[in-house]
């Protein structure tokens, strides 16, 4: 192996553009699945607290499946399994619109929704039931009591866990390489194949992952501090 030379990669426009595309795709997958996960988590939370036994049972089963089956296996099941069961027009449309990325977003989003909903549930359980009773007594409907009284407090309680799982979700976007999504891990493999600069390639991408993860943690810490000035010692 010749001497360490980072400029071999950073000085090559082809490699840099591959890297930038990988970064972009990583964030597309991460942000897309995060959005899907958070939306679903709120729906699942609502289902859990809805009257009747069916909602709670469904959410329990959903969370149990997504927590006990490895994320990679879920992605493989989506892309290689469910994809092939879909009718041809849907298949053609998906193939025209980057099917790998779509299924990565769906797979990671559905999986992460289970964790987010459990975080929110823990946060909600930390809020006294008296709050709901007081809100109903003052004339709030169930939905508005949940929306204006319970969820804001519950989500603040859940913030630390949500931040941790958001970092996990970002890291899990690297799993999309298994179904061919051209994200950061995919990019490093391509660059390494072309340049034979194994050490430089992996060092670069590892540093990028680390920097982005720490940025997300810092952003999360900032959001947590802003959301709860009392607990963080301000106000």
């Amino acid at each position: 192996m010749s001497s360490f030379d980072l400029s071999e990669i950073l000085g090559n426009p082809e490699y840099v553009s591959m890297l930038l595309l990988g970064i972009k795709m990583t964030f597309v997958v991460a942000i897309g699945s995060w959005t899907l996960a958070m939306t679903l988590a709120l729906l699942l939370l609502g289902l859990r607290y809805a009257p009747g036994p069916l909602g709670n049972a469904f959410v329990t089963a959903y969370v149990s499946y997504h927590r006990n089956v490895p994320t990679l296996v879920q992605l493989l099941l989506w892309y290689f399994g469910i994809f092939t069961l879909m009718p041809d027009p849907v298949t053609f449309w998906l193939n025209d619109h980057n099917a790998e990325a779509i299924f990565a977003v769906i797979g990671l989003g559905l999986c992460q929704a289970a964790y987010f909903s459990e975080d929110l549930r823990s946060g909600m359980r930390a809020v006294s039931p008296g709050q709901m009773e007081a809100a109903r007594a003052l004339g709030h409907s169930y939905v508005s009591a949940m929306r204006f009284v319970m969820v804001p407090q519950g989500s603040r309680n859940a913030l630390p866990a949500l931040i941790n799982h958001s970092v996990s979700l970002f890291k899990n976007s690297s799993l999309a390489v298994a179904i061919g999504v051209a994200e950061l891990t995919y990019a490093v493999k391509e660059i390494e194949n072309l340049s034979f600069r194994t050490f430089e390639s992996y060092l670069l991408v590892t540093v990028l992952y680390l920097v982005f993860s720490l940025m997300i943690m810092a952003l999360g810490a900032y959001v947590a501090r802003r959301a709860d000035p009392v607990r963080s010692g301000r106000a």
Partner: protein
Amino acid sequence: MISDIIAIIRDYWLLLLIGQYPNGPLGGLAATLLLSILAIAFAFPVSIALALARLSKSPFLNWPVTALVYFTRGVPLLMLILWGYFLVPLATGANVPSFLTMLVTLVVYQGAFLSEVVRGGIVALGHGQMEASRALGHSYLGAMRYVILPQALYNVIPSIISVFVATIKDTTLGYVINVPDLTFAASQINNQLLTQPFQVFFILAAVYYVICWSLSRVAIVTERRITRPRRIRP
């Protein structure tokens, strides 16, 4: 659909269970469990050492280990696996089997992760235990070995089981470097069948679900058992 699944299990159950052994390397579910058990077995002493280093007042011990823990928290496990797979042979010149690469990576990764669990257990005990032990003449190591660690590790048994479950799930990433585990066996079956990918990966998901769910139940039951005595005798 159901008959397809039954047919796949009937035709390929041995491949799913032990891979190509004895004609080839041990694979399938046996390899997954072996990998997970070995990883936790080696990660456990590593995590205790790292936890004690993290709690140490010496900056030479504390800061490097803290950096290692944050590094493993910030980098995807897949990147660590690829580091091991591509760079270790390059650096040492020796050809390393993918199973061993995966094992070492999991030990490092879960060792760092588990060290936070162990550290949490130790911190949760409070200072009084250590101070009382030192007052009675124990050295630091003696106090840690006979008083602190037994209590702390007992308390975190459920978390250790949870980390074991996470390790089993993490072994699936070996798929990317062709570790012959359960996921690899499923992809081999899929390559042979070609026409029933949903059924194959459904079976794969179901097997992981049963194993991980069962172990999670063990963790919950264990946790109840551990916390029970505290309530009876406050």
